[in-house]
Structure formats: C-alpha cells, structure tokens
C-alpha cells in the first residue's frame, strides 16, 4: 500500500481529519457546519463523477437531493415508514426516474444538456412546491428523526459520525469507480466521445450509468439531510441549490474527488463567515467566486497540487 498516492494517502488523510476534528470543534454550532459540509461533499462527489470525469454538466442535481429528502419526509412523517425503508424507497425512485430520463437527456450536448438538466431540476422543485397536501408546499414539512432498531439519532455529535462515515464510504466508492475500467471509460468519454466509441466504449451506456449513480448518491444525501435537519423546504430541490452544488465541484477542482470535498467545505463555510458583512454578503460571495475562477481556472485542488509540482494524472 503506497501512502503517497492520492488514493490511499488521501483516504487516510480524510479519515484522520474526520477523527481529529471533534477535538477542535468547540460547540454544536460548529458541528452543524461540519455536518452540512459532509452532506454537501457527498452530493458533490457523485456530481463530480458526472461533471469532472465524464464531462457532462448537470444544473438540476438538487432535484434528486430534494426527492430523497422528501421521500424520507413524506413516508416517515405521513405513513410512519422506518427511516431506512423510506431512504431506500427514495433512492429506488430516484434510480428509476433518472434511468428513464437519462437516455434522452444524456443525448444532449453542451448548453442543451445544461438546459435539459436545469429544466428537469426546476420541474421537480415546482412539483414539490405545488403538491402541498403531500409536501407541505412552499413552507416545507417536518421530518421525524432517524431511528435504527429503536434508537433515534439525536444531536450533532451522533450525526457527525453518521455523516463522517457516509462520506468516507462515498469517497471510497468514488475512488474505486474512477480507478476501475468503468472510470477509464468515463474519462475517455470526457476526452472525445467519438474516439471512445471507436475504441469500443459503449458511450450511451456509461453516460446513463454515471448519471444514475450520481443521482442516487444525491438522493441518499438528501435523505440524510432531511433526518438530520428535521425540516425540509422545496428550496432544497431548487435551482439555486443546484447551482451551489455545481459551483462546489468546479471551485474544488473538476475530476478530483478530494477537490469536491474541499469545494463543498469552502462554499459551506464561506456564507457563515460572510455573515459578518451583513448586507454585503452576496457582493463579497460573488466577487470571491469570480476571482477564484479567474485565477484558479482548474479549481483549488488541481491548481494547488500543480504548485507543489505533483504530476497531474
């Protein structure tokens, strides 16, 4: 096992950070932020498989996050389903929906793909807003706590470990996928679809597969968020959230699993820090976003890695 590779070394580093971080967090407010970072990071890792590795943009992934969250909310609160069951039901539903729309949507290219995924996300959020009898409408709905075998998960400290372990599992899965023949096929699609096809890569098949995978990951993260937060609104599925997720991936660095984690961390913490600017919050946020993209075009992690002279894979 070579610790210097980004794969094992990075995994260990992330595990170490997750293990040590609780010693540095003074109160539950900080726990809350770190938990949200973890949940965002899980979605971003999945989204990065699609955007970073396969080169297909999605401006609607918050829609899948929202479906996951609302399945947990609706089945848990209205029908008394156990948390695990509603979480799996949400993921299964998202898998089915994303599988059905993946073929026509993944046929689109460039800006048409951006438009298609954007439209998909907005339709999901409008349905969640308008079906008020089920979803509580624009005001949102409460979600019962996550309980396993009669134990309910309460409090930031418990959730910290739940999200931390989920994040590690997601990173491990993503790294394995990227280094597998599937991952190589995905990257060849990013390079040139025609070249990939000529070499015998079943391009539509892989695109559908990665789209469904990233959608299901988003749905799981949505369910986690719903149970943790205890309250969800249609904003979770909205356009602004979709854009936030893409921004996290691009800011952290495309085609870098740890970049997705770093991007999620920065864009989750930044608004909290910027609250000191009160009314100027959005001004500063927009400026930082533009500045980072101008000066670090490839995103934070790849740019910094290049500074340290690491060979880019």
């Amino acid at each position: 096992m070579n610790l210097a590779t980004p794969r094992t070394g990075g995994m260990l580093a992330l595990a170490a950070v997750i293990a040590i971080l609780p010693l540095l967090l003074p109160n539950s407010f900080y726990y809350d932020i770190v938990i949200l970072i973890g949940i965002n990071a899980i979605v971003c890792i999945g989204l990065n498989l699609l955007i970073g590795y396969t080169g297909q943009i999605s401006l609607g992934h918050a829609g899948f996050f929202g479906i996951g969250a609302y399945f947990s909310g609706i089945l848990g609160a209205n029908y008394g389903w156990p948390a695990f069951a509603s979480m799996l039901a949400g993921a299964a539903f998202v898998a089915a929906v994303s599988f059905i729309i993946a073929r026509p949507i993944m046929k689109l290219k460039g800006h048409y793909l951006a438009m298609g995924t954007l439209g998909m996300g907005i339709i999901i959020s409008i349905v969640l807003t308008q079906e008020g009898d089920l979803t509580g409408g624009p005001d949102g709905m409460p979600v019962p706590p996550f309980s396993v075998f009669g134990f309910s998960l309460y409090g930031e400290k418990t959730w910290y470990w739940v999200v931390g372990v989920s994040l590690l599992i997601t990173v491990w899965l993503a790294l394995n996928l990227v280094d597998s023949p599937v991952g190589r096929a995905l990257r060849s699609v990013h390079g040139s679809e025609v070249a990939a096809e000529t070499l015998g890569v079943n391009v539509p098949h892989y695109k559908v597969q990665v789209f469904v995978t990233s959608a299901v990951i988003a749905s799981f993260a949505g369910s986690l968020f719903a149970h943790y937060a205890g309250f969800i609104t249609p904003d979770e599925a909205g356009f602004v959230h979709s854009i936030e997720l893409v921004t996290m991936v691009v800011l952290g660095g495309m085609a870098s699993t740890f970049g997705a984690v770093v991007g999620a961390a920065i864009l989750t913490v930044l608004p909290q820090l910027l609250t000191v600017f009160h009314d100027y919050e959005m001004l500063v946020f927009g400026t930082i976003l533009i500045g980072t993209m101008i000066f670090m075009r490839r995103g934070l992690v790849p740019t910094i890695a290049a500074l340290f002279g690491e060979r880019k894979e």
Partner: protein
Amino acid sequence: MFAEFLQFLFSGITVGAIYALVGLGFTIIYNASHIINFAQGEFVMLGAMSAVFFVSVGMPMPVAMLLAIIITIFIGLALVKLAIEPARNASIVTLIIITIGASIFLRGAAQVLWGRNFHSLAPISGNDPIMIGGAAVLPQSLWILGSAMLIVMALRYFFDRTLIGKAIVASAHNPLAARLAGINARFVLLLSFGLSAMLGAVAGFLIAPISLAYPSVGIMLGLKGFCAAVLGGLGNPMGAVLGGLIVGISEAMTAGYISSAYKDAVAFIIILGVLFFRPSGLFGIRGTERV
C-alpha cells in the same frame, strides 16, 4: 368564450415578447463567444430597478429609461472587462460559473442599493385597458409589443446590413477565420455584452409595471429567456423570438385553462419535450461534430 381565449393570448404574447428580448440577449452573447451568460436575468432586473430609482428621484419617464439603459450597458461592459476577459481561454463551464458569480454579485449590489422590497413602476401611458374583441388589453402590453417588434427589426437590420453586425455574425460562424479577416474579437465580445445588456434593460423597465421590480425578479425571467433561446435553437436570433412567444403563450394558456400552479413549469416541460425529440432545438441546425 372567445374573448377569454383572446385575453389569454394577449397576456401570453406580452410576456412572450419579454422572454423573446431576454432570449435574444442570450443568443447575441452566445454567438459572439459561446458563453451562456447567466447574468442576463440580472440585466433585466437592473433595467427595472434603476428605472424605478430614477423615477423616484423625480426624473421624467423617458430620461429614467435612457439612464437605466446606459447604466445597464455600462455594467455589461464592466462585466466583460473585469470578469470575462481576464478569464479568456478558460473552459466554458468556468466561464458559466463566472457569469453565475456575476449574477450573485449584481443581485447583492441591488439589495444593498435599493433594499429587498418590491417596487412598482407607473405604466408608460396609464392603466385604462383597451377593449379588443371583448378582451381587455393594457396599454403597457402594446408598448411592450411595439418596442419588441421595433428592436427585433432594428437587430435584423444591424446583423444583416451593417459592417459591424456582419462582423459579429462572422465571429459566430468561425472565430478564427473572422480574426484572420481582421475582425477585432475583443470588440465583438464587448459589443455583444453591451447589446444584450441594452435588451435586458429595455425588457426590465417594460415589464416592471406588470411584474413589479425587486432584486430577484431576474432569476425566473432569465431562465425562461434561456428556455426561449434554446427552444429556437441556440444562436438563431429569430428562433429565440419565436421561442419566447411559444413559451409566453403556452404559459398563459396553461394558467388560464389548466392550472396556474404549474404556470412556471410550462416553459421547462416544453423545453424538455422538444429537446428529447430534437436535441438542437426547434430551428437549430443539427451540427456535425468535427473529430
């Protein structure tokens, strides 16, 4: 019965004309640079908000409109100089994120300057509806339609007949060849953002008396304008105009006959339906990919 239909049709054409103007803005910038400018909706917001501001400090309406256009154009040019040009040669996704950053910035700036409240703007010539075939049409609708038609015709003339306009079209078709023929790519980029900002500002102060003006008014207008542009085939100006009208009319008909709850979803349902069967929009040319 027919009067009702006519009523929905008029209101659909009115918003459709606005979507068409916003869609044209997307198209012009896309043609000049292949960038999707997600700050296009913010140009609309700026046009509306600054017109409201200038009227509130006592300026006559035409002056306020002119100033609103000038300010929005200035901001469009500043956007190119400060954010787009420094990132030249960056990937398209990076450029898109930059325009998203710009739109967040502009919304934030509007909130700081003018607050989060809703503002109303007086219509250009009163609120007394004109009866046409039993349907009540607001004078503002006629202003919107007239201005949109005038702008579309002026743009056609500009792109088909003037040297500068042809230069933009040439850069859209083949940027490298256009550069070799002596067309200044940076100037074309600036000009396209300036033009789009102007279209946005006009759409903004024209729709403000109907939709009100507030810092986030541009989000949905911008997205539906994007729908219009894609529906007509990205890069095709007349396609964007038709796309805008289709979106506007279907929206009004849905709100009138089916359900107003899903009014905002109509544009996106149409676009998904069209893209699933025609991946390059209704009037887009099916491109072949060069390997």
